[in-house]
C-alpha cells in the first residue's frame, strides 16, 4: 500500500449526461413522467394516479384480465392452499401443481408440445436466446428488438448480426453471408412495442427457413389479441407451425407477471436443466401461476373481447389521425397507437397536460425508441368502452391544442 491515497473515481460519472437531461426536464416544472404512483386501481382501465381519477391508456392490460372474478378467485384459492411463495428454483423445490397447470394451459393455448414458464418475460428471452445460440452460432435479429432480446444476445457467445427494422432484403443479405454450416437463430417480434407495428413474419420466416435458420418469435404484445385464437401475429399470418420458439409473457394480456417459451422441438425439455435464468431464480408464487392459468384458459374463448379491442384500436387511430396527430403507423396494426412528439420537452408537456385531463399514457424516449423519437404510447384495453375512447379523443384534442402540437 502506498502512503498517499488515490482519490476515489466515482463510478456514477458515466450517468452524468442522463442526470442532466432529467434535471433539465424537471426544472421546466413538468410533473415527473417516470415516478407516477397509482394510489388506487379501480378497474383495468381506471386508477387514482397522483391523486386524480385517471383513465389508463398506457398499460399492457390489453384484455382487461386483472380484475376478472374467476382469475382473482383462483389466485386467492392458491394463496390459501399453497402459501405466498415457493422459496425455490423450478428444478428443486419450486415446481408446484400450479406451475404444471399453467404449462398445461399454455400447451393447449398454442397447441404445442412443450411449454416452459419463467419468472418474468425478460428472463424468457434472456434464458432461451443465451442458451440455445452458443459460440460459433449466429443470431440474426431486427435492430428494433426489445432490451431482453439484446441482453440475451449479450449474455451468450454467438455472433450477433442485426438488420434494419422489418427489412426482409436486409435480413436475407445477412443470412446469405453466414459461413456454411454455422447454426443460425433468427429473432423476430410479432408486434414491435414502440410504434405498435407488425412484422411481415410470413415473408421473413420463409427467408429464414431457406437458409436453414431456427426461428424465435416474441409475441409479448400480440398474445390474447391477434390471431383467431389469440396466439399472435404468426398465427394471424398462417406461419405459426414454422416458428421454432414462441416467447411470451403473463404481464400483458394474461394480466399478472411471468414469461414463457413454447416449442415443438423434440429435445426442448432439456432447457429446464441448462438454461441458467430458469434454474438460478425462484419460481413464481402459487397465486401468480393460478391466476395465469385461469386467465390463459379464458383467453382461448375471448373472441368477442378481441373484436371489441380491434374496434377501440381502429377508432382511436382514426380519431387521432383526424385531429392532426402524427402516428407511428399509417393504419392500426395492434392495440398500441404511438403518437409521435416533436421533441422530449413537448412530449413531456403533452404527457402532463393529458394527465391533468385525467388520462395516463406512456412517455417513451430514446434509447428505448427507434430513430431517437419521443413518443406518447397509447395501449388500448378490451375493457375500454366505446364512450371512453371518445372521451380520450376529447382529452387529446384539448391537450394537443394547449401544448401547441395540433
Amino acid at each position, binding site marked *: 500500500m502506498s502512503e498517499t491515497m488515490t482519490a476515489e473515481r466515482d463510478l456514477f460519472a458515466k450517468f452524468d449526461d442522463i442526470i442532466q437531461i432529467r434535471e433539465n426536464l424537471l426544472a421546466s416544472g413538468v410533473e415527473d413522467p417516470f415516478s407516477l404512483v397509482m394510489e388506487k386501481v379501480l378497474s383495468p382501465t381506471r386508477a387514482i394516479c397522483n391523486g386524480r381519477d385517471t383513465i389508463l391508456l398506457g398499460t399492457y392490460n390489453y384484455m382487461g384480465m386483472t380484475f376478472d372474478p374467476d382469475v382473482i378467485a383462483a389466485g386467492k384459492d392458491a394463496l390459501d392452499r399453497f402459501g405466498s411463495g415457493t422459496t425455490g428454483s423450478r428444478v428443486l423445490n419450486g415446481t408446484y401443481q400450479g406451475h404444471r397447470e399453467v404449462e398445461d394451459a399454455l400447451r393447449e393455448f398454442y397447441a404445442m408440445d412443450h411449454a416452459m414458464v419463467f419468472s418474468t418475460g425478460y428472463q424468457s428471452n434472456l434464458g432461451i436466446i443465451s442458451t440455445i445460440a452458443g459460440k460459433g452460432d*449466429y443470431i440474426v435479429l431486427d435492430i428494433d428488438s426489445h432490451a431482453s432480446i439484446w441482453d440475451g444476445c449479450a449474455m451468450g457467445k454467438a*455472433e*450477433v*448480426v442485426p438488420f434494419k427494422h422489418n427489412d426482409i432484403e436486409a435480413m436475407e443479405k*445477412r443470412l446469405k453471408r*453466414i459461413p456454411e454450416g454455422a447454426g443460425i437463430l433468427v429473432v423476430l417480434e410479432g408486434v414491435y412495442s414502440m410504434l405498435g407495428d407488425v412484422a411481415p413474419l410470413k415473408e421473413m420466416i420463409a427467408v429464414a427457413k431457406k437458409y436453414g435458420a431456427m426461428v424465435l418469435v416474441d409475441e409479448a404484445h400480440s398474445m390474447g389479441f391477434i390471431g383467431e385464437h389469440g396466439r399472435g401475429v404468426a398465427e394471424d399470418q398462417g406461419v405459426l407451425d414454422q416458428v421454432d420458439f414462441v416467447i411470451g409473457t403473463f404481464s400483458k394480456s394474461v394480466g399478472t407477471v411471468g414469461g414463457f417459451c413454447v416449442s415443438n422441438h423434440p429435445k426442448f425439455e432439456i432447457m429446464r436443466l441448462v438454461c441458467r435464468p430458469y434454474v438460478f431464480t425462484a419460481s413464481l408464487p402459487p397465486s401468480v401461476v393460478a391466476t395465469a392459468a385461469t386467465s390463459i384458459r379464458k383467453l382461448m374463448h375471448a373472441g368477442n373481447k378481441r373484436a371489441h379491442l380491434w374496434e377501440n384500436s381502429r377508432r382511436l387511430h382514426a380519431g387521432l389521425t383526424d385531429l392532426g396527430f402524427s402516428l407511428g403507423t399509417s393504419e392500426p396494426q395492434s392495440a398500441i397507437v404511438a403518437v409521435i412528439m416533436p421533441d422530449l420537452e413537448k412530449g413531456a408537456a403533452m404527457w402532463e397536460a393529458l394527465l391533468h385531463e385525467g388520462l395516463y399514457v406512456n412517455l417513451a424516449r430514446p434509447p428505448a425508441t427507434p*430513430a431517437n423519437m419521443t413518443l406518447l404510447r397509447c395501449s388500448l384495453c378490451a375493457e375500454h368502452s366505446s364512450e371512453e375512447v371518445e372521451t380520450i379523443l376529447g382529452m387529446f384534442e384539448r391537450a394537443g391544442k394547449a401544448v401547441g402540437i395540433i
Partner: protein
Amino acid sequence: MDRAEVDSRIRTIIEPFNKKSVAIADNTSFAGDLEFDSLTVMDFVAAIEDEFDIIISMNQQAEIETYGQLVDAVTGMQGE
C-alpha cells in the same frame, strides 16, 4: 484486394456519413471524431457489408474503434 484498395473504397462509402467533413486518418475514431450514433453505425456497417459482401458482427464491431482498425478488419476478411 489489398489494404490500399479497401481503404479507397471505404473512403468513398464514408463520405455521406461524414457530416462535418472531418479529415480521415487511420486514428480517426467513429464515436469520438466522427460522432457516429448507433443508428449511423448500423447504416454505415450495412453499407460496408454490402460493398464487400461480408458480415461484421456486433462482436467484431466492438473491437473496431478507429478508421484504421476498420480497414484492417475488412482487409483481413477479404483474405479469408
